[in-house]
């Protein structure tokens, strides 16, 4: 049983200028036939009233230890001030912090005005914050998308979540074992082009596919495909991501038929 929204809202990530949310919205509308609108940054759209309280909630969502389940507690004064600075200037990327995705999602839902909370309206929030969830293997995993209400699509997750080439980690580990400190960003230069990086010009094209995964999940309850050549494929490696998302609008047979059925239903 499909759950058909009659409107989709995409919220821009002002910290990622290389992401064109309008193009992504047009893509979704063309492929699904569902009216899709773009809005400004979610936290700016709905968070004007009580920035300090929102900053506090975001700060409380910080993951302090990736090897332990989330430990809730009061945020430090400086952490709240840190979040406040980013809320006041949403064009800046938040570096070096992992947030518990489920807590961020709960906050976003609470911020949504009641009139905007309905099964017929789906919200997709682009953010530069890195989000993760604690998984059964006993540690946090970063994600590109977190399907829910609203769904979150992380531009930092696109860079950090799918694994880079194995050699990247071997080299990184060697530096760590040698007891040396390296500016790890410089390691990336050796592997340029083999993964999506911050402000990568390919971000919009890649995130079209991820946004589609979120919408398909909200409609059909099944976000991912096992076929590497389908845009709905759940890539664990950057090479898989590039293969799935940057070779035209490819879908497996089942998902192509599903998307056609969704479009027909939406247009009827």
């Amino acid at each position, binding site marked *: 049983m499909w759950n058909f929204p009659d409107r989709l809202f995409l919220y821009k990530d002002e910290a990622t200028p290389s992401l064109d949310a309008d193009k992504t919205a047009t893509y979704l509308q063309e492929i699904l036939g569902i009216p899709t609108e773009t809005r400004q940054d979610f936290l700016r759209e709905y968070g004007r009233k009580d920035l300090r309280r929102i900053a506090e909630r975001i700060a409380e969502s910080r993951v*302090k230890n990736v090897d332990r389940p989330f430990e809730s507690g009061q945020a430090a004064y*400086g952490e709240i001030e840190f979040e406040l600075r980013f809320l006041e200037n949403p064009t800046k990327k938040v*570096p*070096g912090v992992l947030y518990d995705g489920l807590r961020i999602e709960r906050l976003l839902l609470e911020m949504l005005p009641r009139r905007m909370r309905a099964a017929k309206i789906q919200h997709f929030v682009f953010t530069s914050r890195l989000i993760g969830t604690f998984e059964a293997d006993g540690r946090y995993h970063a994600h590109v998308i977190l399907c829910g209400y609203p769904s979150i699509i992380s531009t930092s997750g696109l860079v950090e979540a799918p694994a880079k080439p194995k050699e990247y980690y071997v080299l990184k580990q060697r530096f760590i074992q040698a007891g040396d400190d390296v500016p790890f960003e410089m390691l*990336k230069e050796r592997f340029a082009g083999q993964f999506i990086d911050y402000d990568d010009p390919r971000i919009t094209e890649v995130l079209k596919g991820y946004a589609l995964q979120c919408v398909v999940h909200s409609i059909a309850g099944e976000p991912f495909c096992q076929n590497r050549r389908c845009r709905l494929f759940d890539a664990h490696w950057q090479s898989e991501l590039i293969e799935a998302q940057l070779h035209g609008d490819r879908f497996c047979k089942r998902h192509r038929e599903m998307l056609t059925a969704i479009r027909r239903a939406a247009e009827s």
Partner: protein
Amino acid sequence: MPIFQKAGEADVTRAILAGFTHDFEEYADTEVVIIGGGPSGLMAARDLARKNVKVVIMERNNYLGGGFWIGGFLMNTITVRAPAQKVLDEIGCPYKEFSKNLYVTPGPHACSKLIAAACDAGAKIQNMTSFEDVVIREKNRVSGVVINWTPVHTLPREITCVDPIALECKVVIDATGHQAEVMQALKKRGLAKIVGEGGMWVEKSEDAVVEHTGIAYPGVIVAGMAVSSTYGLPRMGPTFGAMLLSGKRAAEAALKEMGK
């Protein structure tokens, strides 16, 4: 014919005392006290002094500069990544481009230029002085520091009775490196948190240090590696750009805090 003009021992002593007393009287009630004279503390002091802020650095050692004299593995070449080379331009320190966006300069040259830049701008320096505690005022805001001579700490407690003294100020900058001494003092009093490690991702450590620089407790700004310790950020490479830019951010935050 002697080279130097005559000056008696007593005159030399009086000159030292008068110079010290004059400066110390100014520190007693100042605008910004910076604890730690490493690269971030010096940078903050230089930028604040250039804005005519009354600022003093408290340094526990007799030398300033912290780890800025040497790079990684005791080799005295300093590296900075773009855009931190612009700071080297500001303080008049020459450098070379090693590779795209990575610059190198001799540590002693960069460090001495930075110390001179802070002093030339008007920052006061009190070396051989250790931070002991914070002064707390209304609403638990930090409004000063308690200090003592460093050598006092090397003597056994049983035979030392040198009481510390307190200085009042509007803002304290914790630039004490990994120890984050000011924040630790607040933690001991149960007033502030030092965040544990583990939640950050190492690739963004330099950006994270600069972006986390700012107010960490009412009246206290953290800068440099103290930021890393306060927020549990990962260690980063032997590249000093983040220390310099963190110092600049700390100065901006102090100006904002004082409404300037």
